[in-house]
């Protein structure tokens, strides 16, 4: 098969969606798809249906220790980023420390990002022992992740709200620390770029952190 037309493409559409074409057949089919949106739609639909069928595969408990092994590999994968993150945090903390509210120190830093453009901020407590990280990205609704590393052993609860550039603050949710670490991941009904700040309160309503996400510079 070389120059594939629409009837020929339809003949092999299922095999293409399931990855069961030889290299040359696949190349010919993909060439046709590049210039035929209707066939592209057909193959896209079939591919999605085939992928949906994966949900029917039986769940199977992985071998003991799988979770820690995969987390170790992921840690290895992202280590270079975290090293850069730490150096940025250290540099930012050394150069500019902004006092906000009752002894809070809040500073926005640029993370090196991760795989897509995101807006990030880091808020550091006055003592320097607790940090609150905010990552937000995407259009309305934006994905928002707030993580807090507090005192070791702490199980305190916190309330989070998002402040858009315009309009009233939006309640986001609450989370609790588990042995000093806690995380809230959710969405907020604004574009990431329209989110001015994220505030974290204790259960008495006292503002503990306010972080102002800024775009990660493109490299």
């Amino acid at each position, binding site marked *: 098969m070389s120059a594939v037309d629409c009837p020929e493409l339809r003949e092999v559409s299922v095999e293409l969606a399931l990855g069961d074409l030889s290299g040359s057949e696949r190349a010919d089919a993909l060439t046709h798809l590049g210039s035929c949106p209707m066939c592209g739609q057909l193959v896209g639909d079939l591919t*999605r249906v085939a992928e949906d*069928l994966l*949900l029917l*595969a039986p769940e199977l408990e992985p071998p003991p220790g799988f979770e820690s092994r995969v987390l170790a590999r992921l840690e290895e994968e992202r280590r270079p980023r975290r090293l850069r993150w730490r150096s940025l945090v250290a540099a930012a903390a050394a150069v500019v420390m902004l006092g906000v509210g009752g002894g809070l120190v809040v500073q926005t830093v640029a993370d090196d990002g*991760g*795989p897509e453009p995101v807006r990030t901020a880091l808020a550091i407590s006055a003592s320097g022992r607790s940090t609150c990280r905010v990552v937000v990205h995407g259009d309305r609704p934006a994905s928002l992740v707030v993580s807090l590393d507090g005192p070791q052993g702490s199980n305190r609860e916190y309330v989070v709200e998002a402040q858009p550039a315009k309009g009233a603050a939006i309640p986001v949710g609450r989370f609790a620390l588990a042995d000093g670490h806690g*995380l809230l*991941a959710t969405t907020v009904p604004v574009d990431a770029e329209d989110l001015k700040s994220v505030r974290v309160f204790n259960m008495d309503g006292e503002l503990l952190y306010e972080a102002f996400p800024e775009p990660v510079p493109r490299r």
Partner: protein
Amino acid sequence: MWTASDDALLAGFGVGDREATASFVRRYQSRVFGVAHSVVNDRALAEDVAQEAFLRAFRHASAYDPRKGSVPTWLLAITRNAALDAVRLRRPEPVDPAVIAHFDLLVSESSGPAARAEVSQEVQGLREVIAALPPEQSRALLLAAVCGRTAKEIAESEGIPLGTAKTRIRKGLLKVREGMGATKGGDPR
């Protein structure tokens, strides 16, 4: 305490948040391992594949497009591809077609753990459509779509001509597409 949506959890995982990463792995590991094992039929190799799948998901998290499918479907497609890559490299034992007997095909079964809630409606629809197919079609389709078997391999394991295997797979997938279009109220064409 995790109640985050799949999308939000993936966002945290994709930017390397430690807590989100642990929760992401915990939420999906049995599904990922299940798909990996369905393809490679070897527990040790399935673990390698499952680890690779999570690494690929981390590297490509920004490419996830919710308009094209749910997070579990996206992750399981990555897993299937990783498993097929491993199969090509290491040629494990062919999947025993009896594996289909363990598939989640009971229409009346409840949705199970909370992690499955988001996909349970879709899964239920799939089960109904699959249950309506002739058994030989659903079997050939699942062996191809989930276990990654080629039409030629299915023809050999089922003892049928290659053309028959291809027809069963083709008709099965087209019927599921049509059925799921009807389930979702959309136009299958």
